[in-house]
């Protein structure tokens, strides 16, 4: 699967998603990306869709167009996510709905549609995105952590539902990476978070790409339903 893979990555306009898209392009893959806004990446092997990941019609149309163009999707990287740092008691219901719409429903819709194509070919790799905020039970991130807990649970069950189909489903739980997502978190809070990791530093896109490539490897066909946290964090 290493040569000329077709990889669908969500949330590619910035941050980790953009970094991962660049990683795959550098390694010769074809990347189909999406985000709410226009593409920020230009490459002959990159195609972009402007959509909300929680919009079922748009997700169905994108995935089927990707399959029509390329005949397959080798891997799905469900990176798109939003966070809203706030005390649970101060979180508006609309914010909670928005977090779950992007982080959970978006992940679910892409998994459902891409898995349909993968099941037909009896092969594929799905990697969802969790966070260390979930196992660390971070105060101030209740809704974000809860939405990612839903992603973890979904990943584990979907892995079992697809267990005999040749499609693996895993998740990565990155530590904070200096991106827009964590830009508004106070410095003291961020340092306290890093102090709870075994390896106390920010993560990098390369750290994530390394874990991702493990799950995407053809040799990882016996690895499914796993959540891999970076930085030495445990559930």
């Amino acid at each position, binding site marked *: 699967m290493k040569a000329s893979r077709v990889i669908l990555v969500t949330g590619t306009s910035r941050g980790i998603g953009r970094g991962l898209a660049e990683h795959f392009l550098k390694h010769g893959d074809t990347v189909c990306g999406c985000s709410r806004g226009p593409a920020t990446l230009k490459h002959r092997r990159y195609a972009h869709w402007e959509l909300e990941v929680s919009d*079922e*019609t748009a997700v*169905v*149309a994108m995935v*089927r167009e990707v*399959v*029509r163009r390329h005949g397959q999707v080798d891997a799905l990287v469900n990176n798109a996510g939003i966070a809203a740092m706030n005390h649970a008691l101060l979180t508006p219901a609309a914010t909670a709905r928005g977090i779950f719409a992007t982080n959970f429903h978006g992940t679910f819709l892409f998994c459902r549609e891409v898995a*349909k*194509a993968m*099941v*037909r070919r009896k092969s594929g790799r799905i990697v969802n995105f969790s966070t260390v905020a979930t196992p660390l039970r971070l105060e101030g991130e209740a809704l974000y952590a809860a939405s990612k807990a839903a992603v973890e649970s979904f990943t584990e069950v979907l892995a079992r*539902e697809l267990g*005999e*189909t040749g499609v693996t489903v895993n998740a990565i739980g990155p530590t904070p990476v200096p991106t827009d997502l964590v830009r508004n978190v106070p410095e003291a809070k961020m340092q306290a978070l890093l102090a709870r990791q075994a390896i106390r530093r920010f993560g990098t896109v390369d750290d994530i790409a390394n874990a991702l490539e493990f799950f995407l490897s053809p040799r990882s066909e016996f690895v499914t339903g796993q959540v891999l946290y970076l930085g030495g964090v445990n559930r």
Partner: protein
Amino acid sequence: MPQSGNVSPERLRKLILATLPAAQRSGANPVVFGPGSELDSLGLVNFLADLEYRIAEEFDREVVLASERAMSRSRSPFRDVEALTAYAAELLNE
């Protein structure tokens, strides 16, 4: 050749029959899922995924067959070819 506009139930029925396992294609109204079907739940998943792609190729239209409407019906639209043809035509002709 993809065809847009209203879909012919007969073409849809032929497509459904061609997607069903060969052993299940006989009779006036073959069973799709349930007693008498070869499909287990994973088989139904594969069948519906395959059918969605074949419908897109044939009619140039995207449908999600496992919709809320399908799941909330008292009689499953996936029970036999006739029911599935009527249900898929309904989705495609919306």
